[in-house]
């Protein structure tokens, strides 16, 4: 099995280095990196804006490009956090805590250097896990029927709802809202128009890209307009500064390993967001440190661990998405949506039916990560200058990209109105302290949950016990119950908040 995986990987490399594929991978990484650096823009907006571009591409370059945007934007996000204390990318917010003090002490180069090393190391571990775990998971997943699929999606949704930041109740509410939005359109089984408000444009349901761009693009602009201060960049970066000293390397080595482990673990669990992962990696380091008071004042461990966690999670996240068809977080939900648009159904059969796609994606991860290191080192000066692009010019231009991008999804101006509505809804929900990431997860998983729920009960003649009679399904149900129980216990003790809240 291992040899099989390695030889598949080898042929994957062959596909990934074909000029067209290599070009789109590079393009994705570059654009992702660029957008990730820009304040107020994250992986989600970058992927949704460029999603329409993939409609004209073949599936392989399309997916390589989108994946490249994803991890490219993560490299970019860390730069703003370290140099300017800009927590605009939630997963990197925790990097600000020690990264920015390091900048103030004149150790910005070392912080960036260690970030890149941790990222590359963690991504490589994540890729290796993906190579060996995916075929194993697929072997199990082939035995999944509707009850198992329903139960594992339930677990994923619950984890996504309760493990995001803030109140778990609000997370659950948002997941439900997402699922209800997913219901809109023509019912797949008997063709009833549901929640279409009599608008024929909604017969095919709500457009995924419109939802994502409204909630994560327009709503962000509405929240930030006239509130983001212009930043000045005082730092000059040189290549020479980017090499951390030997003492710093030694200090960061174990935290890097532990961060990678945390990220791998959380990546494998469906539903856990990237932000919570980095916060836990940081909290763990502080707990283990001999001198926890150093944290917050430029401890290099506080940079290495969360960045490693974020990158290993990114790679491991692809495992459930590609092999089960169950996305672990909103970005994965978008990538899943992109696969569906290309008429590729993610799931256990993906690795066998589209082996070239799967293995070239894995291969491109490595190529992309090498490209990112090569890009980031010489281009760091340009990225630093980009950070100074004022938000007041950025958001009107981005608004245009959103409008034209979403138009291209269906060549229909109606979806622009959808973006407008979701932008307002998203802004209201954020103002009321609701986490909006679970909405996207609920939206993508909702129809699959309904489908499998209906099928499972059709097969069992309406007997709900079917979900606990199948052993695998029973395991997922037990895990879900445990998750809810733990959350209730923690919130009664008041400790739940302390666990997920960023350390001061």
């Amino acid at each position, binding site marked *: 099995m291992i040899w099989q995986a390695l030889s598949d990987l080898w042929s994957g490399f062959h596909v990934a280095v074909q000029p067209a594929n290599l070009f789109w991978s590079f393009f994705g990484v570059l654009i992702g990196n660029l957008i990730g650096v820009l304040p107020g823009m994250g992986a989600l907006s970058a992927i949704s804006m460029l999603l329409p571009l993939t409609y004209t591409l073949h599936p392989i370059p399309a997916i390589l490009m989108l994946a490249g945007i994803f991890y490219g934007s993560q490299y970019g996000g860390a730069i703003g956090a370290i140099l300017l204390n800009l927590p605009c990318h939630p997963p990197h917010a925790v990097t600000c805590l020690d990264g920015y003090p390091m900048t103030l002490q004149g150790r910005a180069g070392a912080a960036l250097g260690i970030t890149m090393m941790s990222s590359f190391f963690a991504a490589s571990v994540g890729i290796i896990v993906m190579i060996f775990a995916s075929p194993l998971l697929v072997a199990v997943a082939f035995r999944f029927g509707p009850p198992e699929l329903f139960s594992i999606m339930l677990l994923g949704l619950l984890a996504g709802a309760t493990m995001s930041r803030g109140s778990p109740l609000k997370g659950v509410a948002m997941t439900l809202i997402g699922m209800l939005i997913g219901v809109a359109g023509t019912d797949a089984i008997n063709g009833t128009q549901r929640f279409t408000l009599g608008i024929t444009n909604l017969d095919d349901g709500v457009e995924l890209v419109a939802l994502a761009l409204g909630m994560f693009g327009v709503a962000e602009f509405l929240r930030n307009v006239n509130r983001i201060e212009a930043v000045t960049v005082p730092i000059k970066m040189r290549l020479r500064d980017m090499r951390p000293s030997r003492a710093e390397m030694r200090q960061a080595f174990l935290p890097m390993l532990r961060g990678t482990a945390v990220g791998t673990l959380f990546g494998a669990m469906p539903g856990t967001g990237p932000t919570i992962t980095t916060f836990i990696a940081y909290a763990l380091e502080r707990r283990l440190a001999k001198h926890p008071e150093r944290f917050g004042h430029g401890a290099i461990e506080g940079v290495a661990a969360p960045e490693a966690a974020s990158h290993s999670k990114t790679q491991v996240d692809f495992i459930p998405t590609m092999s089960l068809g169950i996305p672990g977080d909103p970005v994965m939900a978008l990538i899943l949506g992109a696969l569906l648009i290309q008429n590729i159904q993610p799931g256990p059969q993906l690795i066998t039916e589209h082996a070239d796609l799967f293995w070239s994606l894995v291969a491109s991860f490595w190529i992309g990560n090498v490209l990112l290191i090569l890009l980031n080192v010489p281009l760091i000066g340009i990225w630093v200058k980009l950070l100074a692009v004022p938000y007041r010019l950025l958001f009107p231009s981005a608004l245009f990209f959103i*409008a034209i991008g979403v138009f291209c999804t269906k060549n229909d101006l109606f979806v622009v109105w959808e973006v407008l509505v979701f932008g307002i809804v998203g802004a209201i929900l954020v103002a*009321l302290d609701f986490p909006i990431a679970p909405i996207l997860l609920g939206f993508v998983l909702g129809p699959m949950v309904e489908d499998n729920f209906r099928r499972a009960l059709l097969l069992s003649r309406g007997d709900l016990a079917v979900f606990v009679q199948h052993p695998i399904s029973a395991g997922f149900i037990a895990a879900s119950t445990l998750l809810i129980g733990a959350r209730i216990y923690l919130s009664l003790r008041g400790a739940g908040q302390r666990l997920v809240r960023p350390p001061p």
Partner: protein
Amino acid sequence: MRSVELKDLLGGLLMLVLGIGMATQASHYEIGSLRRMGPGFFPLALGVILAGTGGLILLSAFRAPLAAARAQFRPEWRGWICILVGLAAFALLGRHAGLLPATFATVFIAALGDRQNSILVASITAAAMTLICLIVFWWQLKVPLPLLPWSEG
């Protein structure tokens, strides 16, 4: 003395109303039975759970710890209106006038939402984006929208 968390109060109420509304709408579709579910079953169940969750959020609003730091809510009408009108302008002008006017209007109106942008800055940004739009989206990607009011769609 307990304080009431206004955000949770409003949020819980909103979810309660939405849940009841969705459930009511779903109950107009065929519900069916567990053995053979109709199209209304699943949304009805989701709506009921949502209403329940909303109720719990509403209750938790009354148990908020005292003196929790609350962010001041400042309305930002100029920014909000300009962004939303800018987006709406794209949908309207895209249909009735063409791609270039739509692009210019969207960027121009949205840019005016920021207090530091002058009309000149907004015009320059909008013109630059219009140029990018012409090259990338019309010429390269061949977006199927008429370019100008008088050009054939």
